[in-house]
């Protein structure tokens, strides 16, 4: 009973506070833009559009990264591909050091401007933490646990499904959380290749020197990052409590 109550509060309290903060901020800045120039960017339709474009880019890239990153991570830890796994892990680590703006600019050259290019570049960028964490989570499981499972005659697929994935899950989800926070931040750069999003507010604010635009864009993307991180954190907690109950 007490756990249930605590869960409800943690599920809804923080998201509610965040949504409230975002709404209050939007209402405030739309009504007090501090001048006509900033006011032209700070309208309800504009902010809604930017927010939607931002969410859309982040969610599309995140879904693609999860769908590709986790299976790829699993495959690389299978016995036959283990050596390749170490190589890929290093490549991935190096890949993460390329600046995100450079990745966007690179794909702009080949794919043109707009939403699709932005999602593609963001996807490539956000796949890395998920792949790496899946790989790390699975390889860090102690060998004797797996040996015991195999010794009991459990099939390799069931070992993966019943033992490896549940044990590696906190690490995998941590990767997804890292990824989503990176994505929300990086998506603000997509404005430079015409994909819109909250970066429109930030970049416009910088170029016309209206701080309120920069602050609004930055605050909204920070709120979005915390929100998504929280949601994924709750999924993790739900999955963990299931595992614990079974143990």
């Amino acid at each position: 009973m007490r756990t249930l109550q605590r869960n409800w509060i943690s599920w809804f309290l923080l998201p509610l506070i965040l949504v409230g903060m975002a709404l209050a901020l939007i209402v405030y800045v739309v009504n007090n833009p501090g001048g006509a120039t900033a006011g032209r960017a700070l309208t309800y339709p504009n902010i809604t559009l930017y927010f939607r474009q931002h969410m859309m880019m982040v969610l599309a890239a995140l879904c693609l990264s999860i769908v590709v990153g986790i299976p790829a991570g699993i495959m690389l830890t299978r016995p036959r591909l283990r050596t390749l796994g170490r190589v890929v892990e290093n490549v991935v680590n190096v890949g993460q050091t390329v600046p995100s703006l450079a990745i966007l600019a690179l794909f702009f050259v080949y794919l043109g401007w707009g939403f699709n290019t932005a999602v593609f570049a963001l996807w490539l960028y956000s796949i890395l933490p998920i792949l790496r964490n899946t790989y790390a989570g699975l390889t860090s499981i102690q060998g004797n646990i797996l040996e015991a499972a195999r010794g009991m005659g459990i099939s390799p697929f069931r070992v993966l499904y019943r033992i490896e994935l549940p044990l590696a899950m906190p690490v995998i989800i941590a990767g997804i959380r890292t990824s989503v926070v990176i994505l929300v931040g990086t998506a603000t750069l997509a404005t430079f290749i015409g994909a819109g999003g909250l970066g429109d507010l930030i970049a416009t604010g910088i170029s016309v020197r209206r701080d309120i635009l920069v602050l609004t864009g930055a605050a909204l993307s920070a709120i979005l990052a915390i929100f998504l991180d929280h949601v994924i954190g709750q999924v993790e907690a739900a999955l963990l409590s299931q595992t614990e109950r079974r143990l």
Partner: protein
Amino acid sequence: MFGQIKWKLGLLLAAVMITGIFMAGCASDDGWVFATDHEYSVRPDGYPGLAELYGFEFDDVVIMDLGITYAALRDGEVPLAMGFATDGRIAAFDLVNLVDDMQFHPVYNCSPNVLASTLDDYPEIEGILNQVVPLLDAETMQSLNATVDIDEKEPADVARDFLLEHGLIGETPPAADKGPVGVGSKEFTEQLLLGQMAVMLLEDNGFNVVDNTGLGGTALAREALENGEIDIYWEYTGTAWMAHLGHEEPLTDPAECYQKVKEEDLANGIVWLDYTEFDNTYTIMMRRADAEELGIVTISDLADAINEGVPAP
């Protein structure tokens, strides 16, 4: 272990997908789509004011980095784009500037901005930099820009050739005995050229110059000047009036704008030297073939075409 929570995950996934589909519904890429940079999208002397004065609205406005609008227009990805009147790519990409028949766009003449404190130490800087200003008319600037953007010459080489041709500098600068003086610029071609000209003119007069050209956007260059990290950069009168001095109403007379900016900025410790004849104002561009086919020459023509529902090229 996944059995009991499968439905929860399913629910979450479904929610994400529904949100995605809902949000995908808002994208539209057809019609009179206008590619613009960030600044132009909100400035009163940009798109909002233009649409109001001429009485039309584009079907969609796409905001992107300054400089990729030209290629987006050339490649047929958008029918309309904003650019700058002195850009060399306009002629090279076979684009046309629509005539601003209602004289909406304000003036953007360029002038070297020097810190007053630096000018106190080296008053000769004013004379040195002012030598080049009268040479810079619209045609000259456009062709210098094109030499860099289209012929892919280095801005420094183009600037040196230009100054040598006009006898403003010698082949090799003398040993530096004054300074150091920091010269900055924004990141686009014209600014790099003007910045390099300032660097070379000062070096030719025995200054030790710190070359900080290509700093970034307007705000960065201005902040660098205000903080004393650089001593000189070229600014446009209209930009200073609106962005740095915070005025909301644009000015359309070159001399008036220059005088007002010069006076106000003196209080900020910044001195405006002479201003150029060229006026690097905003321009609305179309592909030449489209403009000829639709008979669009002026922005009023464009407004009529949009309002009459002529399909976008």
